[in-house]
Every structure is written in structure tokens, then in C-alpha cells.
């Protein structure tokens, strides 16, 4: 890991700087990270059993996902990807919806009113500009909302990343660009995605503050995002955050990382696990014991299981229902097509 980045919590759980949150809050965030991991492993397992469509695990990126969302408020927006389930959940996207989406059901996106989290973007790079738009709307509507968009290193290669960064700069939208540089765009290592030394080097080209942080350090993530969110909320415009992390698992359950990387590199990152690091901190601060850990794990497991059960209990769409959500009211063409389907099967 390059040294030129913000780190607050060392891998051994000791502090280099000031913790951005108190110990109680740290315990809450720890709890959330554990829920994320339990969810992630459950989904991988379910996919193997054929109960989910392809799944994109985020193991190793829990500090990014929980930490980036921690500073958000109710009126804020989250616009993230297929790999950001923990972030979305922590921002209020119900877990049952996340799982439903992964089973292959559009109702996954049908989240409660008031939760400002868009369904995950499956296309790479196209969604960041949406968070410029939602942020812009907040600015025009004067609701003080901030938009957080999360994306990977690979997404920064798309033209849409550029247009999003540029628009955010020009219109000074309250948008936080949170890039999880997890080292890979499927099989393409970071070094082959760009000739830049760091993605954060791009920020200056948009007249935007940028910071590179240790993405496996919950405190660095919380600190950097808090500052970016405060800047945005107070009218200071967008910030770009490059969080250095690693995708421990495969790109998706359909991927075989053995084709493009060695287990050694991955093992090294395993030793820098973001959850272990916070645990070490809590231990050192007398804020952890095994029974609490077990409680957290059990709760997480119950929560995930309940969501799975609820998702799987839902009957799939009937034939007619697939026509129902293209427009506010189905057009005559769609009604005719629905009839054709009924007629001919």
C-alpha cells in the first residue's frame, strides 16, 4: 500500500491520528461492518446453491462502505454499484430489497419512500453523474442534501466519470465521489487502467479537492467522508476520495481470479482486514468482549436470514405483471402485448 495516503488507525489497531468518532459510535460501525460481512458471505453461499443470480462480493471493503455512509443524513442521496450492498443497506436500503434484487426480481428496487438510495448501478461508470444530478436538485431545492456516489477504480476509465466530475466542479454540486480502488477491474489491475500514479491525481484537473486514504481504515474513511460531506453541505462543492482497498473475493461468483492474480497478494490484504482492525482498536479500548462479539454475529445472522426468508417468500411475477412498470400507465401497445403473451404463452 502506498504511503501517501490518510491513515488514522494502523492495521494493528493503534491510532496515528485522532479518531473521528467516539468508542460507542465505533462499536455501532463495527456492528454494521459485521452485518455487511455476514450478508456478503450468505449471498455468496446462496449463489452457489442457485438461489441468487451472479453475486459480486465485497469482502475486504467493509470499512469503505460503512464508513462512507456514516456521516450521511436523511435527506442525502446514495448512488452506488452492484458491489456496494453494505453501503446501501447502511444508508437505509432494506436488506430484503437487496436480496430480492439478487434473486433476479425488479421489486428489489421498490424501496420505501423517503429512502434516497438508488438501485445499484450494474453498468460501470454511468451512475456518478446521477449523483451530480441529485446533488444539483438538492442545491436548487435548498434541502441541504448531499449526494454520495460510490464506484470502483475501473469506473474511472469511463467517459461518464469525466463528465460527472466536470459537471460537479462546474456547478459546485454537493456531491462526494467515493472511489473504492480495490485494485482490479475484473482482471485488469489498477496499474494497467491508467498511467497516473494515483486516481486522486485526477481531482485537480476538475478543480476539485481530492484525498487518498487507507480504505481498510474505518477511521480514515469516516474522517475523509465527514469532511467531504460537511464541505458539500455548506456549499463548498464536491470532493473526490480515493480509498485504497482490495477485493478479497472474486469479481463475481462467475469469476475465477486464479486466471489473473496470485493468492499471495490477496493473503497480504487479508492480513489488513478492516473489521479485524477495528476489533483490535475496540479491544485496546476495553470496548470489546467475546460475548458482545457473539451477540453481534447472532444479530447479524438473524437479520440476514430474516431478509432472505422474506425475499424468497415472494412469488415471482406473473406473466402479466412484467408489463406493469414501463410507464405510469401501460400504453395500449403494452396491453396488446400482454394479451398476446396470454394468448400464445
Amino acid at each position, binding site marked *: 500500500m502506498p504511503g501517501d495516503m490518510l491513515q488514522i488507525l494502523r492495521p494493528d489497531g493503534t491510532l496515528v491520528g485522532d479518531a473521528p468518532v467516539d468508542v460507542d459510535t465505533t462499536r455501532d460501525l463495527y456492528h454494521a461492518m459485521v452485518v455487511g460481512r455476514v450478508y456478503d458471505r450468505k449471498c455468496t453461499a446462496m449463489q452457489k446453491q442457485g438461489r441468487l443470480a451472479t453475486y459480486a462480493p465485497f469482502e475486504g471493503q467493509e470499512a469503505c462502505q460503512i464508513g462512507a455512509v456514516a456521516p450521511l443524513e436523511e435527506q442525502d*442521496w446514495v448512488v452506488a454499484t452492484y458491489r456496494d450492498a453494505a453501503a446501501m443497506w447502511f444508508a437505509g436500503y432494506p436488506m430484503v430489497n437487496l436480496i430480492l434484487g439478487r434473486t433476479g426480481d425488479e421489486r428489489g428496487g421498490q424501496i420505501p419512500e423517503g429512502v434516497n438510495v438508488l438501485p445499484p448501478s450494474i453498468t460501470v461508470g454511468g451512475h456518478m453523474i446521477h*449523483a451530480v*444530478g441529485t446533488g444539483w436538485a438538492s442545491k436548487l431545492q435548498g434541502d441541504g442534501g448531499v449526494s454520495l456516489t460510490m464506484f470502483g477504480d475501473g469506473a474511472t476509465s469511463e467517459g461518464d466519470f469525466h463528465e460527472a466530475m466536470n459537471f460537479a466542479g462546474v456547478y459546485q454540486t454537493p456531491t462526494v465521489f467515493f472511489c473504492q480502488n480495490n485494485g482490479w477491474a475484473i482482471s485488469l489491475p489498477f496499474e494497467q487502467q491508467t498511467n497516473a500514479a494515483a486516481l486522486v491525481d485526477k481531482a485537480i484537473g476538475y478543480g476539485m479537492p481530492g484525498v487518498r486514504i487507507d480504505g481498510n481504515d474505518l477511521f480514515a474513511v469516516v474522517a475523509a467522508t465527514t469532511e467531504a460531506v460537511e464541505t458539500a453541505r455548506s456549499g463548498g462543492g464536491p470532493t473526490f476520495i480515493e480509498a485504497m482497498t482490495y477485493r478479497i473475493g472474486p469479481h463475481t461468483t462467475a469469476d475465477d481470479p486464479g486466471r489473473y492474480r496470485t493468492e499471495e497478494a490477496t493473503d497480504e490484504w487479508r492480513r489488513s482486514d478492516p473489521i479485524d482492525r477495528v476489533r483490535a482498536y475496540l479491544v485496546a479500548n476495553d470496548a470489546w468482549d467475546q460475548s458482545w462479539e457473539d451477540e453481534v454475529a447472532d444479530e447479524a445472522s438473524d437479520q440476514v436470514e430474516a431478509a432472505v426468508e422474506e425475499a424468497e417468500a415472494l412469488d415471482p411475477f406473473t406473466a402479466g405483471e412484467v408489463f406493469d412498470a414501463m410507464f405510469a400507465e401501460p400504453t395500449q401497445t403494452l396491453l396488446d402485448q400482454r394479451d398476446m403473451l396470454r394468448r400464445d404463452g
Partner: protein
Amino acid sequence: MNGQATTERTMAQALNAGLREALSDESVVILGEDVGRTGGVFRVTDGLQAEYGAERVVDTPVAESGIVGAAFGLAVAGMRPIAEIQFMGFSYPGYDQVVNHVSRIRNRSRHRFTAPLVIRIPYGGGIGAAEHHSESFEAIYTHVPGLKVVVPSRPIDAKGLLTAAVADPDPVIFLEPIRAYRSMKEEVPDDSYEVPIGVASIERPGDDVTLIGYGAMMREVREAAEVLASSGVGAEVIDLRTLVPLDVETVIASVQNTGRAVIVHEAPRTSGFGGEIAATIQERALYSLRAPVERVTGWDIVVPLRRAEKHYTPGVDRIVAAAMRTTEGH
């Protein structure tokens, strides 16, 4: 609209009036390249920034995907953006946003999130413009589930359809025929009114052949109907006004009566929207057809530049010839 105050306007002026009206709703934002200070390359947004300010009528960088994507975000968050793409030939960089996000968010979220936005795109040729400035690629939008596609041919429809598009709860691709911006004036109501999306207009009744057109080509279609009338052939003229959702009933009822149809568009022939119409007509009215449905279209070539463009755009002669051919049918 009887008894209402009207003003004689070109289509560009009618659209300008419609946009001004739309801006009285505070959630409406207009964004696009050069829409503000200059009022757009066709002056359709002329004066709007001066009146409503640079926050509501926004000059954007040259970035079509950004324009559409930002409009999408604005719409999702409760605004009513009206995006302008400068020419249809420059709309393709924004196509991904249109197909993968704008048209899909409602379905993706089963009505939870929606993108009620309008994308205005000047299209079509006939003015001897540079390459990419004469495109008529509506078919790449009509094929996208979740979009409505509207094409006015005259000032009064332009304003009414625009108002309907802005009010529509779903995304509307609003195609503006460049050649018709200033070629025709008519009395346009000053007050607000909607021309409903999805309803074609029978401009002229006739019993011998149905002429189906939209956008700028309506001028040639109307003229062809005159020529045919002078030869004793009664052409029923349909201006589709909306391509999606298509007003199938109006088209079919007419063809069932006439037994003959000619579809006119300036887009390339292969996979153009004319194919959809012809396919639909033979599906619903085959046994009424007395001759093959004719398509009078642009060719499968790049719209030629100024010196040879005339060989591309369907002219009155071609429409008349096609119509006459249908009357020679069995």
C-alpha cells in the same frame, strides 16, 4: 381552444412560448449547450435565461452524456428537467444514459423512482448543413422500451405536445424538425394547452390512399396530397405526431378504408420506423390492402452534404409516384 387569444408563431416561437410557460413551474430546469446566453443555436430558448436566470436555464459544457445523466439525476430527485441536445447527430454520446437509465428507472424500481424529463432534439435535414447536422435517427429511440417519442410537424402541435411532454410522468424524447422551425407560421394559443401524446391527427380526409408522415416530411406529404387531388386521387393525410406510443387505431381505420398506404420518413430505409408501421398495417389490415404498403424514405446512406442532399430527402414526386403505384394495385 375557441375564443382564446392566439399569436402567429413559427414552430421555434411556439416552442419558446411553451418553454417559457413550463418555467413558471419552479421544478422545471432547462439545460443544454448554448441554451442560455445565446438562446440555443436555433434560438428556441431565446430570452429564457434573461427571464429566469442562469440557475433555471443552464448553459452546459459540451458533454451530451453528462447533460442527459445530470437531467436524469435531477428528475429522480423531483425536478422536471428539459434537456436540449444541439443536433440529433450529437445525441449518441447520451444514448447510453437514455437506454440504460432514463428509460428504465421506473421498471428497475417498480414505480418507486421515476425520470420525468424531456429531451429535446432538433433533427432532420433539408438545410444543407454540415455532416451530422441532418440526421433522422428516431428509430434508435422508438426501439427503446420505456420512452415516449414525439415529433410535431407544426407550431400549434409543437407547443401543445411540449406542454404534454413536460407534464408526462415518464421520459419523452421530443424531436424537433429543423426544417420546420421557421418554414410555417400559424395562430398558436397564448394560454397553456396540451396536445395529447399518442394521438395522431387526420389532417385531410380521403378515400383512395392513406399518406402517413411526421415531422418535417409533412410538408411534402401535404403537397403530395394536393398533387394527388388534382389527379383525382383522394389522399387521407395522417400526421402521426407521436411515434411511441403509436396511434395504431387511427392508422388502421384509415387503411381499412383506403386499402392503400404510403409511409414517408427521411430516416434511412432499413430498420427505419416506416418498417414498424408497414409491419403493423399488414398485421392488422392485410385483408384490406389492395397494394403493398409503400415506404418513401431516405436511403441507406449517410445524408449527403449540401451539394447532393437533394438526392436524399424524399420529395413530393417520390410520394406521388408511390401513391399512384398503390392505386395500380390489384
